[in-house]
């Protein structure tokens, strides 16, 4: 039996060279979001959704596209023609989360789901021994220290990786101050349309304090304490956490503590 003949080998080489040169442009265009159909070439984009929760159901334009799980905390939807897409994420016991995302060609629009329970648990902090289960026990020293935190004025700016919270004349803004870098998608109504500032509070509200907490922004106004997502795209979730005038909050030791009169509470489940 003879070795593979040079002629056969040449045929294979040219065949694979031909296939290579056909495949390369097709693969590169495909990877860049181009799709080929009977209607010709379509430029597409995609949506990437981070879902940092288990058991949430994800809908795209009303159609279920997946569920989140322990090992499945994100969804990528490709092949989307440039347009607006409504994403809804639901989970039993939580407020539904909806977002209108604009998809542009060759780009991926991303968003992070923010779920807040329908009823946020609030526990009173007390120094009394044998207190009921709806309360949390603190030592007298801890309680006094927590109270003392409320004696100092809150900061008017707070920075994090997604921007800086700024209270100006009673209005709350989230601002992106790193001029050299690309704006995170929460600042962008569409991937190519971004502004480095998001108005967090409503015009009529006067914000007294604000902080990043539990994946959202917690702020207090004269009418109570609220949590809101950091995202400029509609429809942003704004949930009252403690709707009582005169209340204030501080984030102490990673806990969201509310002061109402002389009493302290902790907001749980956020």
């Amino acid at each position: 039996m003879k070795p593979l003949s040079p002629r056969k080998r040449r045929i294979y080489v040219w065949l694979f060279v031909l296939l290579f040169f056909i495949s390369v442009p097709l693969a590169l265009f495909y990877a860049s979001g181009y799709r080929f159909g009977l209607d010709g070439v379509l430029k597409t984009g995609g949506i990437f959704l981070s879902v940092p929760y288990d058991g949430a159901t994800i809908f795209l334009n009303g159609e279920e596209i997946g569920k989140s799980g322990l090992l499945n905390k994100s969804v990528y939807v490709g092949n989307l023609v440039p347009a607006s897409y409504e994403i809804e994420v639901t989970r039993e016991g939580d407020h539904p989360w909806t977002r209108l995302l604009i998809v542009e060609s060759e780009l991926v629009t991303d968003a992070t789901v923010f779920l807040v329970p329908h009823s946020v648990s609030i526990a009173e902090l007390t120094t009394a021994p044998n207190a009921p289960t709806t309360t949390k026990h603190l030592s007298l020293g801890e309680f006094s220290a927590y109270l003392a935190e409320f004696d100092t004025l809150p900061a008017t700016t707070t920075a994090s990786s997604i921007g800086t919270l700024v209270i100006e004349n009673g209005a709350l803004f989230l601002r992106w101050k790193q001029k050299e870098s690309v704006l995170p998608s929460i600042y962008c109504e569409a991937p190519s349309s971004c502004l480095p500032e998001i108005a967090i509070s409503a015009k009529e509200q006067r914000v007294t304090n604000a902080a990043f907490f539990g994946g959202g922004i917690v702020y207090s106004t004269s009418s109570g304490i609220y949590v809101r997502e950091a995202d400029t795209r509609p429809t942003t979730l704004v949930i009252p956490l403690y709707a009582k005038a005169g209340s204030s909050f501080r984030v102490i030791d990673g806990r969201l503590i509310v002061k109402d009169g002389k009493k302290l509470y902790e907001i749980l489940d956020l």
Partner: protein
Amino acid sequence: MMNKKDLYWYLHIGRANELIGRDRVIYRLFEMLPGALSLATLWIFVVLSFVKPVFAAYLTIIFSIYWLFKTFYLSIHLRHNFKRMRHNLAIDWNERLESLKYGHIVHLIIFPFYQDDYRVLSGSIRGLLESQWDPKSMVVVLAAEERAGSSALEVAARIEREFKARFLACIITRHPSDVAGEMPGKGSNISFAAEEARVRVLDPHGVPYENVLVSAFDVDTVVYPQYFACLTWNFLTAEKPLRSSYQPVPLYNNNIWEAPMLARVMAYSSSFWQMIQQERPEKLATFSSHAVPFSSLYEAGYWQKNIVSEDSRIFWNLFARYDGEYEVVPIAYPVSMDANMAPTFIGSVRNIYLQHRRWTYGAENIAYILFVFLKNPRIRLRKKFRAAFFQIEGFWSLTTHPLILFAVGWLPLFIGGDAFNATVLSYSLPSVARTFLAVAMFGLVASAAFSMYLVPKRPPEYTRFRSVVLVAQWILMPLTMVIFSSIPGLDAQLRLMFGRYLGFWVTPKSRKANLPVPKPALTA
């Protein structure tokens, strides 16, 4: 110092520092070439991933496609060689030889050994006796190393005592240690042994050199039954018998059932690569156990004594010595050796790494080839260009491609920056590249199927599960390609580049049992 009056004064250059003046600078630059090319390629990928991640991502996809078609292309060669090897194992080569005059052929078989066990060496000698070839036309040389001490000589003496009468001759050679200009290793040992055999056996017996075929084996090389008949037939029917070396397929079956999974994957990968090369003779140089006509070997001054990769270098020595009119005849017939293993898993990993670093140190041939091509105007330009290109491309792709496909190519995803991460391309890169690589894995699945035919019959002490693992082991391939091809390849090339030259590392032979000659599953 080289005697430049000699037409082939450059024939046995080992390193740049053996030369002077301009030649030394040129050779040094050639030594740096493989490492520089590989580093530059990887460096371009890293820089592109930072600066132009889109281009880097495109390149990764292009590489994946190239890899896919290359795998298909090589698989065709592997499949053909597998068929050819099975065909050759089924043929009665002795019957074929009947129409030829072959009684004058003498096989000189050299077994270089260091501190190897008696049972390893005796297994190889028994392999010769069990082969279907008259041992009275075989000269066996037990090539011991003086530095290995008296125990090695005792092993050789015992072998000589037990088997000498069966062969035309069986001699022990003792390669002296610390010879100026020599590197301790296989090359210097077998060169010494070949010359000793000439003086002590061939000349006294009056054997014409052109009738002698030298099989330069490893200590663990066990021949399959008709190796010598097949080799002789190929020698007698070759277009240029004295201007050709003869390359069998190295299988690593001696201890394959007891070798750990990593060792098995690497062993079959090496065999498959040689099988593929057998179908691409223009890219084939001699490797490991090989055969060469004594007359050519003698004229070329035997194997080089001052380098690591003497097995492949001898081909280039002969190629240069005969002005490009020398080739390798792939005989598509197997010999069996030990898979590289140690008593512990970590030991095996270390041994495999070191062995592959030694093999990939064959990049030292590039400097030699380029230099020789500069100095030898009698080799045709086309031959020079092809040989240089194939060698450079071979070592470059061996080192860089697995690293690009399975490591560096994915960098844009991590360092491409926010703008790149917002593109469809960044999300598509993993899936598109992975798809091409996964399809290429079909080539590996085919390899797994082939490997099952090459494996000797399962010994009763191993369960069926081990057979299943023998197929499943191929999943390790991407990992082994990076750890045992790319990284040792780069290690070897960087050593050459920075002048931190490697010495010869003797692969320790480790077997759990006293093994019989492996039965070729292909003919079962």
